């Protein structure tokens, strides 16, 4: 007797859910690093709120990932196990979100490039044939529409602000641009799920993303870098577990407590 064939191959689905969850988890951790250090009190609270939104979304994705993994056999893991007991090579987040906070222009630029992609991706995922994915995406996209508005607003304010703020925002976009190609690189894992109607076709989002980003950067008087070099494409990036050096340090801080005291409770 054989079990009914699952709608999607569990290994691919689990990997895709980790990609979605790890993006939120890692970026939330980065935004959390600003707590108590924001440029003004109001920004401190606002960027932490965005981080908390992303963390809430990450929990939903990772809980689902843990369930999918459990259904395909041991080891049994929970969302917490996935967050705190995986090493950097097992993380599936984009290289963009693990980049250090830098100055506030760097943080805003990273958020802006990600938000513009995130909102398009979630919009597509609301149409997923996997009802659980569609449901989580519908919940998350409402929050992310606000993130998009906020980060674009700051890109314009800093880019079209003073000479110093313009220079920093341009430097931030220049430095982070090479990590944007990975967002639209579809590998075999994603291809299988796209064909099954479960994953969003990220490559198809690129033209819309490019024109939205261009419109904001034009208003911000910021130029898109001419160099076409992209990191992490060709199935050798964060989505495949090949990360920059920054992720290990981020995880060391995030995971220190549960790894030192595995049974710790609040």
């Amino acid at each position, binding site marked *: 007797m054989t079990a009914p064939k699952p709608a999607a191959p569990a290994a691919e689905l689990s990997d895709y859910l980790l990609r979605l969850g790890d993006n939120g988890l890692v970026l939330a951790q980065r935004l959390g690093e600003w707590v108590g250090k924001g*440029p*003004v*009190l*109001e920004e401190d*609270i*606002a960027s932490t*709120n965005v981080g908390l939104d992303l963390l809430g979304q990450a929990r939903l994705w990772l809980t689902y990932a843990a369930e999918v993994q459990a259904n395909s056999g041991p080891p049994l893991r929970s969302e917490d196990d996935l967050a705190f007991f995986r090493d950097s090579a097992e993380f599936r987040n984009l290289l963009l979100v693990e980049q250090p906070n830098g100055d506030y222009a760097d943080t805003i630029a990273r958020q802006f490039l990600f938000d513009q992609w995130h909102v398009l991706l979630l919009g597509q995922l609301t149409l997923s044939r996997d009802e659980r994915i569609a449901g989580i995406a519908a919940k998350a996209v409402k929050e992310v529409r606000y993130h998009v*508005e*906020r980060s674009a*607003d700051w890109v314009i304010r800093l880019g079209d602000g003073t000479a110093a703020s313009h220079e920093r925002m341009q430097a931030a976009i220049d430095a982070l641009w090479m990590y944007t190609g990975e967002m639209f690189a579809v590998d075999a894992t994603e291809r299988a799920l796209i064909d099954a109607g479960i994953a969003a076709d990220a490559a198809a989002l690129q033209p819309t993303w490019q024109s939205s980003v261009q419109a904001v950067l034009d208003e911000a008087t910021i130029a898109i870098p001419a160099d076409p070099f992209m990191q992490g494409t060709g199935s050798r990036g964060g989505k495949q577990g090949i990360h920059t050096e920054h992720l290990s340090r981020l995880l060391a801080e995030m995971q220190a407590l549960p790894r030192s005291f595995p049974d710790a409770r609040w």
Partner: protein
Amino acid sequence: MSSEWPLWEVFIRSQHGLAHKHVGSLHAPDAEMAIKNARDVYTRRNEGISIWVARSADIHASSPGDRAALFEPANDKVYRHPTFFPMPDEVKHI
């Protein structure tokens, strides 16, 4: 940096009320950002459905020193208070 930003007073209309109520103040460079900041600082737990912001400098207040002259004479004129009318149950939002 924040010392250069003007202060704004924030008013939130709650889920069940008709009136906007003063909830606090914050710093922001302009009205648009003041509303965004107010959303983040004051409405994260379903507190409201509408936000007003006003520059603190544009609000004119009565002087605490005038309190006796302005408000105390009302206390000894009991007929000014609508306490002698039964309130029908149908009347809402009082």
